[in-house]
């Protein structure tokens, strides 16, 4: 390409040189050059880059970062992106999707969308409004918008990273251009997310003037500070203090109350946050797996650029109890098994096969002819940490953290199996053990700032955990707002988690109402949603009084059923159509008066 600019204030020779240079340049280099030139000019006229006049500021890239997050993972990643981008001189606005005005979209230049997926491929609560807006006819054309999507998810779910995919597809349909392709992260998202951030920021800065400010010292400092803190990447080895079975004799459940010391860690949490726990796989399962593969347990494998024994790698670092579709796909490629290939033809068949099976089943059913320990390790996901709703308040327990863990045990395909983290905590933890933990903040599950606001807590099973934390906190704070708990489980006699504490709080007046549903104490099954419906009038009155509603626990059945019950109550008591009632509840979500922590 030859530039022919009749009015250019350049000599022919200068023009020629320019042409020579430009012809060899990639687009992003041109972008960089243009930035560099304006910076160069600014320096010539004696204006420091940092104090650039309005003309320069206009050229700085404006990035809007939107995140949809339920349990805080994506929110944290979005925070990292914002920091990185700022450090690279980008002007950043960071938004919780629920707080962002969707109509602003058409004015955006650069957009980062980060979102997790919940339910069965559904957006997290705080992404709901934006998601629906984009999928509605109200959505504006977005030509000229540059974006990228990062999705967080879990490939053991059928609709992996669905919400991220949906956002990506919609933005594209509306005319926006992807700066870099979407990245879908599995539960071990840290590295991929970091890489996506680096690439995205890189792509943006390269399209910015070259004179962009170097990372400021303060930004570098703050990065240094975070690296010495304990977090998801740097868990704290916390001593176990107490491990008490809560389920009474004869219960078919096995729920534990676990107290852990955070002394000296500097870790702080608030009611509603979760504790991240890095578990260990069952050594018996690890050795069965190694035997099935015919490997040497002590052989050395490469793991995240370090050498580890195979046993250690499988016990501490790789997931062996959950089969994901991507893993089975990779396995099928290697296995060359007609049977497995046939299975792979049907998505539903794979889903069905995966259910209740683990890596050992895969190895035993479809042995690989030639794979070595290193190759095998590379196929596996990182062993992800497990989250547990924190059941204590630091106002009451200081440098301790309490969690409530239901042990997962089941028999499938003729083998007794157990959940990794929960059986580790139940069976394989010495009394003086330490547990690698971090705090997983969740700003979407917080007590009202107003201590006088009434709260309704719906938490059957281990879902009751955060409400113990709420009550401890409100008690310590002397909060006057009324508190109402709905609890449920199988049997009154054996499964009433923290019964004596609730009774004491009811007696002291802190707990205003306590309603329980024990599903298996009578012939017909009774669940919390039935109790909620029985109390329709009172619940409606509480809502009128500004009550906040919290739901915690089972995501598959309980949360949707409770949601349904609430819609019915709002519609009946408030004389509203179903549509209006749904919108009413949605508004409560926006106002942070309906918060859910479900899993």
């Amino acid at each position: 390409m030859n530039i022919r600019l009749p009015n250019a204030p350049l000599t022919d020779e200068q023009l020629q040189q320019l042409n020579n240079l430009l012809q060899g340049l990639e687009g992003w280099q041109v972008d960089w050059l243009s930035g560099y030139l304006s910076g160069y000019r600014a320096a010539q006229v004696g204006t420091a880059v940092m104090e650039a006049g309005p003309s320069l500021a206009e050229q700085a890239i404006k990035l809007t970062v939107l995140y949809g997050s339920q349990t805080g993972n994506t929110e944290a990643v979005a925070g990292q992106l914002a920091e990185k981008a700022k450090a690279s001189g980008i002007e950043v606005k960071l938004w919780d999707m629920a707080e962002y005005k969707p109509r602003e979209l058409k004015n955006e230049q650069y957009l980062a969308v980060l979102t997790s997926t919940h339910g069965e491929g559904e957006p997290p609560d705080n992404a709901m409004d934006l998601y629906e807006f984009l999928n509605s006819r109200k959505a504006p054309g977005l030509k000229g918008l540059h974006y990228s999507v990062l999705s967080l998810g879990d490939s053991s779910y059928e609709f992996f990273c669905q919400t991220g995919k949906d956002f990506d597809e919609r933005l594209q349909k509306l005319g926006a251009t992807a700066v870099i392709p979407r990245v879908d992260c599995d539960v071990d998202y840290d590295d991929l997310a970091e890489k996506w951030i680096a690439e995205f920021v890189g792509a943006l800065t390269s399209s910015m003037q070259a004179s962009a400010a170097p990372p400021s010292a303060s930004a570098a400092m703050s990065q240094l500070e975070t690296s010495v803190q304990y977090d998801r990447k740097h868990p704290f080895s916390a001593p176990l203090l107490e491990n008490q079975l809560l389920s009474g004799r004869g219960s078919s459940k096995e729920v534990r109350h676990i107290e852990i010391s955070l002394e000296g860690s500097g870790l702080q949490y608030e009611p509603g946050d979760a504790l991240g726990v890095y578990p260990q796989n069952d050594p018996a399962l690890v050795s069965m797996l190694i035997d099935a593969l015919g490997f040497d347990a002590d052989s050395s494998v490469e793991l995240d650029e370090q050498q580890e024994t195979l046993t250690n790698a499988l016990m501490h670092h790789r997931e062996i109890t959950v089969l994901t579709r991507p893993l089975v796909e990779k396995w099928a490629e290697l296995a060359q098994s007609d049977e497995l290939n046939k299975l792979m033809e049907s998505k539903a068949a794979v889903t069905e096969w995966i259910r209740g099976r683990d890596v050992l089943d895969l190895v035993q059913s479809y042995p690989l002819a030639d794979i070595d320990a290193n190759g095998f390790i590379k196929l596996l996901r990182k062993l992800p940490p497990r989250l547990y709703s924190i059941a204590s308040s630091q106002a009451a327990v200081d440098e301790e953290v309490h969690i409530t863990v239901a042990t997962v045990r089941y028999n499938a395909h003729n083998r007794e199996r157990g959940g990794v983290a929960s059986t580790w905590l139940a069976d394989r933890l010495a009394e003086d053990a330490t547990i690698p933990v971090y705090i997983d903040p969740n700003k979407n599950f917080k007590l009202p700032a107003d201590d006088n606001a009434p709260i309704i807590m719906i938490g059957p099973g281990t879902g009751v955990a955060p409400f113990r934390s709420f009550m401890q906190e409100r008690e310590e704070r002397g909060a006057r707002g009324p508190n109402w708990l709905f609890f449920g489980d199988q049997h009154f006699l054996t499964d009433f988690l923290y019964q004596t504490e609730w009774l004491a709080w009811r007696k002291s007046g802190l707990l205003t109402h306590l309603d329980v549903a024990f599903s298996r104490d009578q012939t017909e099954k009774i669940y919390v949603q039935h109790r909620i419906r029985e109390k329709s009038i009172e619940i409606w009155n509480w809502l009128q009084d500004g009550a906040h509603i919290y739901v915690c626990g089972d995501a598959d059945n309980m949360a949707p059923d409770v949601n349904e019950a609430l819609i019915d109550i709002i519609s009946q008591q408030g004389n509203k159509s179903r549509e209006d009632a749904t919108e009413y509840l949605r508004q409560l979500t926006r106002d942070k008066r309906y918060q859910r922590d479900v899993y």
Partner: protein
Amino acid sequence: MNTKLPEAEQLKLDSRYLRGTIAEGLDDVVTGSISEDDNKLTKFHGSYMQDHRDLRDERRRQKLEPLYSFMVRLRIAGGVVTPQQWLGLDAIADDCSNGTLRITTRQTFQYHEVLKKDLRSLMQQVNALGLDTKGACGDVNRNVVTNVNPHQSSVHAEVHQISQAISDHLCWQSGAYAEIWLDETCVYQPGKSEEPFYGDRYLPRKFKIGIAIPPENDSDVLANDIALIAIIENDELVGFNVAVGGGMGMTYGETATFPRLATMAGFVPKDQIVKACETIAAIQRDFGDRSVRAHARFKYTIDDHGIEWFNEKFTEYHGEAMTAARPFELVRNGDRFGWIQGEDGQWHLTLYIYSGRVADTEALQLRTALREIAKVHTGEFRMTCNQNLIIANISPEQKPVIEQLVEQYQLDIGERVRHYV
């Protein structure tokens, strides 16, 4: 003088005729317990709360309340039930209790380990069988016990009728029972008495009446507050010798408490006996010591005032004095196990029941056996004061059927215990 009432007396007074907050306590489903005060009141309703001591500490650490349950005792005058009632009571044991029936020394059934949530249902089922639990515990007349005399069936039938009449007559009346247990609407009105006989403070302490038919004394009759000894002349019941102020209980460490045999007061004809019992209970109601609970039993009233005083009061309250006690002889006080044929030709089988426990164990399917017997039996069941069981009034034709079941289930007809005839 304005002295404060003892707690137990105040509680009765404030209870609105035994209502307290029992109904509210039953409706409170987040705890298996009821309040301490209500637990004292439920005794009048035949029930009290216990907890499983062995599990207390374990459950405390599990942040679970103690494992509370209730004992429920029935009012079954003379310990007689029909086969239909037996079958019903047997079913309740599974439905609301721990699958066991317990025969008590006062000739009645007791259920254990009844959970609060099942209490109402249990009471309703018991009432549907024509029985109730009123006054099985509490400061009222308790279950009336009667000799089970298998010999003289006609006398036994008559005495049983009388024990039923006494029991019914001295049963408390408040609407509380039907409201709390049988879902009837509340009839309480402040100032309106619901207890024509007992009043709002009931008796100072529990009150027991026993009847013996000489020469048998299986009901240990003189250990009762009122001991009635049937007087039979020419094979006919004519009336009762009445002794008062018996009671074997004593409180450990309280030196002023002691066991006492009833003192003979005189004879009352049979058509007067229900009223005479009311009179005696009224004397205890009005003169019993309500200030010291350990001294509140009728035996202390008699001991303090003397039998002459009692006889004066009796005459005053009853309008008529007792006549002189008639001769009698009490000789036996054990159960006579095995088969006995009565004067009318009917058969009676006394079974040994280990500590009154009617349950199925691996060694002995006792509950099942008795259920099978109840299905074919046309007579009645009588519980004895020694916690044994009589299958009474078996016709000669039915005898082989019952014998076959006794054989099949290897029931103990007393051969396995030493019996003291």
